[in-house]
């Protein structure tokens, strides 16, 4: 990493340019780089190396096979099934989190009795550890003793207890629901932060121009929270694409692979089938997908900045 100063900030560094600043940069960056990459750089590179080799624990030798692990994954229907499930999980959960998060943020931005309390409470789901959250919802969805069955039955909405996690598609949506419940508050907080800095004059001006509530939302609110929406989109999509923990605790990818996402697929290939090479290739494919998504988002952000 070259740390040569290319264009030092002329104003800030007017007095003692160069050496002191350079020393500061090195002293401030090296520890963070060490902590970040000290333990993971070798694993990062090793996984890449392994992904180009036939590396199965049960067969001797690790011949170089180029991109074969990647190409075999790309023609494997199981991989695409897992990918589309992941896309479904990502789209639905991120979409719901955005919509619900925006609704909660708009609500929390209004004045009402107990607003402070609700602003605090909304953080509870977000602060709950993922494993506790998954365990909690598995308990609520439990077919024999679950609270969901009990409440629906007592309200007369169902006649018999339902096995929520026994059907692949329903189970997937149950997992999404649990994820949305936990992560919506974070989105709400990000958007609320945006909403709070919108000057009241903007709304007044819009009203004077004859804009109704919808018009004010369309022309004042939405443009002001675009950056919050983008940040939520980026972070939530990346996390959702790698989703593993909540599936591990709630359904272990079942039933009939109905909740198997790509990260879970990579996990199974690595630890159950002992195909370390293929597992590593799958992980890098996930990274490629995420990078592509990130690039799209960064382009959007750049347009946002220029606009």
């Amino acid at each position, binding site marked *: 990493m070259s740390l040569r100063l290319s264009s030092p900030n002329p104003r800030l560094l007017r007095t003692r340019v160069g050496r002191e600043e350079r020393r500061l940069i090195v002293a401030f960056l090296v520890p963070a780089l060490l902590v970040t990459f000290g333990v993971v750089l070798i694993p990062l590179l090793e996984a890449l190396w392994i992904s180009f080799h036939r590396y199965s624990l049960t067969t001797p030798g690790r011949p170089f096979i180029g991109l074969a692990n990647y190409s075999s994954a790309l023609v494997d229907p199981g991989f695409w099934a897992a990918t589309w499930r992941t896309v479904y999980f990502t789209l639905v959960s991120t979409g719901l989190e955005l919509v619900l998060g925006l609704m909660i943020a708009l609500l929390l931005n209004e004045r*009402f009795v107990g607003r402070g309390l609700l602003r605090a409470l909304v953080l509870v789901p977000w*602060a709950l550890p993922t494993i506790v959250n998954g365990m909690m919802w598995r308990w609520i969805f439990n077919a024999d003793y679950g609270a969901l069955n009990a409440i629906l039955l007592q309200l007369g909405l169902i006649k018999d207890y339902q096995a929520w996690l026994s059907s692949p598609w329903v189970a997937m949506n149950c997992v999404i629901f649990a994820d949305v419940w936990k992560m919506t508050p974070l989105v709400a907080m990000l958007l*609320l932060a945006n909403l709070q*800095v919108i000057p009241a004059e903007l709304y007044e001006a819009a009203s004077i121009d004859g804009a109704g509530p919808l018009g004010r939302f369309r022309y004042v609110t939405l443009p002001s929270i675009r*950056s919050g929406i983008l940040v939520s989109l980026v972070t939530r999509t990346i996390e959702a694409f790698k989703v593993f923990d909540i599936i591990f605790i709630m359904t272990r990818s079942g039933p009939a692979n109905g909740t198997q996402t790509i990260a879970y697929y990579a996990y199974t290939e690595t630890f159950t089938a002992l195909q370390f090479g293929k597992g590593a290739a799958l992980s890098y494919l996930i990274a490629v997908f*995420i990078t592509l998504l990130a690039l799209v988002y960064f382009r959007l952000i750049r347009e946002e900045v220029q606009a």
Partner: protein
Amino acid sequence: MSGPTQARLRKAGRRLGLHLAALLAGAFILAPFAWLVISSIAGPSDLLERPLRWWPAHAGLGRYLTVLTTTDVNSAAYTFRRALINSSAVAFGTTVLSLVTGVPAGYVLARSRFRGRQALTIFFLSTYLLPPIALIVALYVILSLLGQRDSVVGLILVYSSFVTPFVVWIMRGYFTAVPVEIEEAARIDGCSRFETFWRVGLPLATPGLVTTIIFAILLAWDEFFYALILTSSLRAKTISVAIAEFSGQHMIDYGMIATGGVMAALPPVIIALILQKYIVQGLTAGAVKG
């Protein structure tokens, strides 16, 4: 009906709707967690009744007391207690290490102009792209070589590798948002480069710092997969792993699982509640601008 009355009525209706929406949101947010808490204090037979009893007939804090006091090393309660201590140590160590290294890095990435600054910022975030499964086997070997497998220190090292980039990223945003002029004044007054950071830059970014601390603690407390594979004994097992293992082993004791869940949730929830005003404030100050 006169105009003003109508307007007042409309306003009252709006207020009513607002409060109803707030109540609904509050219920939706709290109900599941409340059920977890109730499950944790309910007697074993209460949980298995049909129709379900919403308030237990035999409520009590017995399980919490057991977790806090038991000396039976084979019990889940003992595992939970030890795991809570481990999780606290890991979260604390990770937060300190990540802040000490990440905050200065975020500062220079925001303030100093040098070649590769942009690339370096993205480089830090690259660790986020790969799922942990890709790294776990090699990490296991490296930690073995360092003698830090199944240890709190080993987990701190691994967690810091993904918490630090996060700190760098967020703090860079805050420092960018803080006006540079005050720091320039300090420089003119003869402060060294480091003093400027320490005495001026850092204090100005305090709200951001608090937000970052909360996020760092929560990230470290929440992590599951690395801990699942890298820890095996009570020396380092974290609370998430303890709960996952326990709920995989003893399906029958839902009350105990719920107790572990509530105890695992309390530290982060309390931190979030106490510092909640900083979260929105901090996000407002700069993180949103990324």
